[in-house]
């Protein structure tokens, strides 16, 4: 019942979405993209994507590109 977020352990529960996860962070407005294992997920999908147990999650402040 655990995931890792940016390399650190984080609690997890069944049905947890990316939007739910970001409520635990004060700087969530900085993240346009989150990577769950090998898959990039963009902000428009944060509400509908459910994080699986044992995922490696990376919060990416997407200001790069181009």
């Amino acid at each position: 019942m655990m995931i890792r977020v940016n390399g650190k352990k984080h609690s997890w529960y069944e049905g947890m979405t990316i939007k739910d996860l970001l409520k635990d962070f004060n700087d969530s407005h900085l993240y346009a993209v989150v990577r769950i294992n090998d898959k990039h997920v963009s902000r428009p999908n944060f509400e509908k994507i459910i994080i699986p147990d044992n995922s490696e999650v990376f919060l990416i402040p997407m200001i790069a590109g181009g």
Partner: protein
Amino acid sequence: MTEYKIEIIKTFDYGRPVIENGYANQTLCIDISDLGISIKPVTEKMKEVFIGGKGFDLWLLWNAVTSSTKWSDPENAICIASGPMGGTPIYPGSGKSIVTTISPLTGSVIDSNVGGYFGPYLKFSGFDALEVTGKASKDVVIFIDGIDENVQIFEAPGLPDDSYDLSAVLTERFAKGKPRHISVVSTGPGAKNTLIGCLNFTWYDLKRKRVRYKQAGRGGIGSVFADKRIKAIVARWDTVTIQTNNPADKNSLKAVGKKHSREIVELDPKQNEMAKIGTTHLVSIMNDFDLLPVNNFQYGRHPEADNIGQEVYRRIFDAGYDGCWMGCTLACAHGVKDFVPLTGPYKGTKVFVDGPEYETIAGCGSNLGIFDPHAAIEMNFYCDAYGLDTISVGTATAFAMECFETGLINEAHTGGMNLSFGNRLAALEIVHQMARGEGFGQIVGRGVREMKSIFARDFGADPDLMQDIGMEAKGLEFSEYISKESLAQQGGYGLALKGPQHDEAWLIFLDMVHNFMPTFEQKAEALHWFPMFRTWFGLCGLCKLPWNDVMPEDNKETPEPAKVMKHVEWYEEYYSAVTGRQISPDGLIRMSEAVYNFQRIFNLKMGFGQREHDNIPYRAVGPVKTVEYESRHERYDKQLVEEHKVDIAGKSTEEKVAILRKLREGLYEKLKDAVYKRRGWTNNGIPTVETVKRLGIDFPEILELLKTHGVE
């Protein structure tokens, strides 16, 4: 094996200077009309004002051309330079070259940056920059041999036409058993027969034992190269170490290089995985944010976008190290092994394809309504082999396809081709026709601006509609991002000096997603700082990707996360360690400002560079057609009601399109006002005398030029 003859027609011996703090302190000038070869000194003043790279290129080009020079005139120069930090093997992204010339598309200055080994090898051979003028009567190859200290010009009939084979043949010919010592600049038949030709710069992949390619794509530089009948320029240099560039402070350089390299190794796998999938991760992200160009920039997303996204290319790319310069840990130049094209001269044979990157996937994929990853790879391969810019090919073909679907042109004009969006074989046939110099492909190869004229004049197409949907500004085709929903990015494209390429300012996320710059003043500040800092990379021989495509983990806690100031400070340390000149973050911006304003004034010299030339087609600003509006009607309706207090009750889509257009065009003009003011320009977009004096570019000819435009 290709049969060819090679005959030396000129040899020029020289003594190679010692590199001092990143500079060779001289440039090489070749006039291929009379085979004149000379060396010019680089003065301290030149280093102080123009720094290197693009700055040196622009100064050489400024002195080579007059205000009436056309792209195909002999005096037009092709200038290639790296920069003082170019050729450093321990700092990521330190092998870039910048190429400039007068563009056949814009009639003014174009610059294009490119990886590969050529720029550093040129410098280590003794030249901070190369300037080639004139026109040869037969195809020639220029060979700059830094090891044997001579420059040779050859006639070489029988060499392959396409860049893919040509570079491999010339690498083998000049390598003397050490192919890593060779870098080739070349183009192909597409460049000769169109105005959108690119240059391929090579690097040798030791592991795969093959020549690899990067492209100086934008603005038709390859077409100038082909028009001069330069078949290739080859540089030969020896082993590169940290000492080769003779930095002022080797220990500091090692320390800062190690910091940045290690950070990338640690964080890139957690962030964008550039070392594994390059820029392909952008496809699905752009699609999610409604920013992926689909069907000539009409729409920003498509249900099939994931078919050409990172999940697919992760499986297709050949795994292994893909750094286009030695020691780069970002190493994003991926490729496809054993690809078998379905069309063209390589049909049915195995080839290695360098790419595709995001721009090619979006330009030659989604923007053409094509969501087949292999079609994008095949387009990529043939564009490179033929010497064609994938961005201009994509955007120009997308325009032709929309004209076809809208009925502005038909099969009688296309030579019987059905140019519907999604027609992969037609898109590939257009590319093959460009290479052969025949058919409708030859018209597409003239670029969007000329196509608009031809379609109106010869086919009776509606010029006003084409002006709205033809995605070019200043004559250059747009690169592959939807800018409709970000005013700052409209400025990033429209106010870019060379035309709408995103390398000056890519502000979509900052503006549209993060809302970091809600006011005009904040947008103007961003459209000052970002273009200036991005320009700086091109002065120094650097790639900008290590700056902001990998973020320090504590970046979000800094006051200005978008600027990635920790990295900016590392770049200051890096610059000082190589050149011995101390500099502050403001100093980096100040360096770029001088060159940036000089380039703006260069545009003025060539008859452009004023407010009217910063206009962009309405497709880049908002929805041209009702179907575009309706595809995002919730967003547009909300904007009209909440932001602009428009009562939309009972209004038709046509009426709402017209109201939104008036509002958005007004905002873009206000943005111009704010940016010009921030940059120290007149309301007509011309740098003021005060600005050029502050930046130390108040040369007599510049003051005279400003005066002729009423600025004194």
